[in-house]
């Protein structure tokens, strides 16, 4: 059954450092993201997601979609690996995660403009 939304005075923005995130498995990060955005917070991670992880984020948000939670809006800057780093990552399994991810419920966050080097977002206060 869908949880009744509480009226909030503002939007809480949470920042999570690279240090805090590096100990967590991706599934844990995904749960942490979903818990936070479903609580109508905006989460800023000091880490980029790769394409496969972004697809998993979309899948997870679709699976949890209901009348009160319409899904997520996310944006960010990805690390740009050179060819040597890409080869190294495919051998060692450790890829460069430098970058940034901003994610929130699409009820709360709205993308205004995004390109490779700049993002602008609006946090909606309802």
């Amino acid at each position, binding site marked *: 059954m869908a949880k009744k939304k509480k009226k909030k005075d503002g939007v809480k923005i949470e920042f999570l450092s690279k240090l805090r995130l590096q100990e967590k498995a991706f599934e844990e990060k995904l749960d942490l993201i979903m818990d936070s955005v479903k609580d109508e917070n905006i989460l800023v991670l000091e880490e980029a997601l790769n*394409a496969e992880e972004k697809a998993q984020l979309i899948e997870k948000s*679709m699976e949890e*979609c209901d*009348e009160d939670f319409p899904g997520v809006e*996310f944006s960010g800057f990805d690390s740009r690996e050179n060819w040597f780093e890409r080869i190294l990552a495919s051998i060692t399994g450790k890829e460069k995660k430098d970058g940034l991810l901003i994610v929130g419920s699409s009820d709360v966050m709205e*993308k205004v403009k995004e390109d490779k080097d700049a993002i602008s977002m609006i946090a909606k206060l309802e």
Partner: protein
Amino acid sequence: MFKKLKRLFANLFGKKDEIKLGIYGPPNTGKTTLANRISEEFTGEEMGTASEVPHETRVVQKKEKVRLQSNGKEISMNLLDMPGISTKVDYKEFVEHGINEDEAKVRSKEATKGVVEAIKWLDKVDAVLVVFDSTEDPYTQVNVTILGNLEAKDIPIILVANKTDLDDAEPESIKDAFPQYNFTKISAKEKENMEDLYKKVVESV
């Protein structure tokens, strides 16, 4: 890495009789209109219903044994019209299109399942047309995610800038946003430049 090697060996030693060509993109970019054009041209039948209401296609639509011919070459393929991929599905959006609330909620649930199904198919397609609405900003996380996943799996990609018949269409902005991919611009609705697309499909796969 393992997936890439597997694909490389499959390409070297096993020639496929039928190519699975997926049509991907966000909702309302004209994927079904494009699928209908291709299917109509090479089988004489349309595939699905196109609509201005988002998420009209909520399950994968398949057309088997489509024999696409261009430039003296022919390929046999299964054409797959995918549900539009988005990060959000709000039932209120369907209500705004005149659908009653109960039906909108059902449609919304079906749409979320469609998005998940389309993502799961990313592992099973052999080549992909990623369809863009030329009047919209192409640099979105949905497009970046689709392209990144296909690239990681070494799946051939053609970017299709659709709706070039509209006054505010800017197909070149798609090429500028993702310059590393094969590109063509068309109007599936007006059947413009379809031959260039067919030529690129035959060359790519």
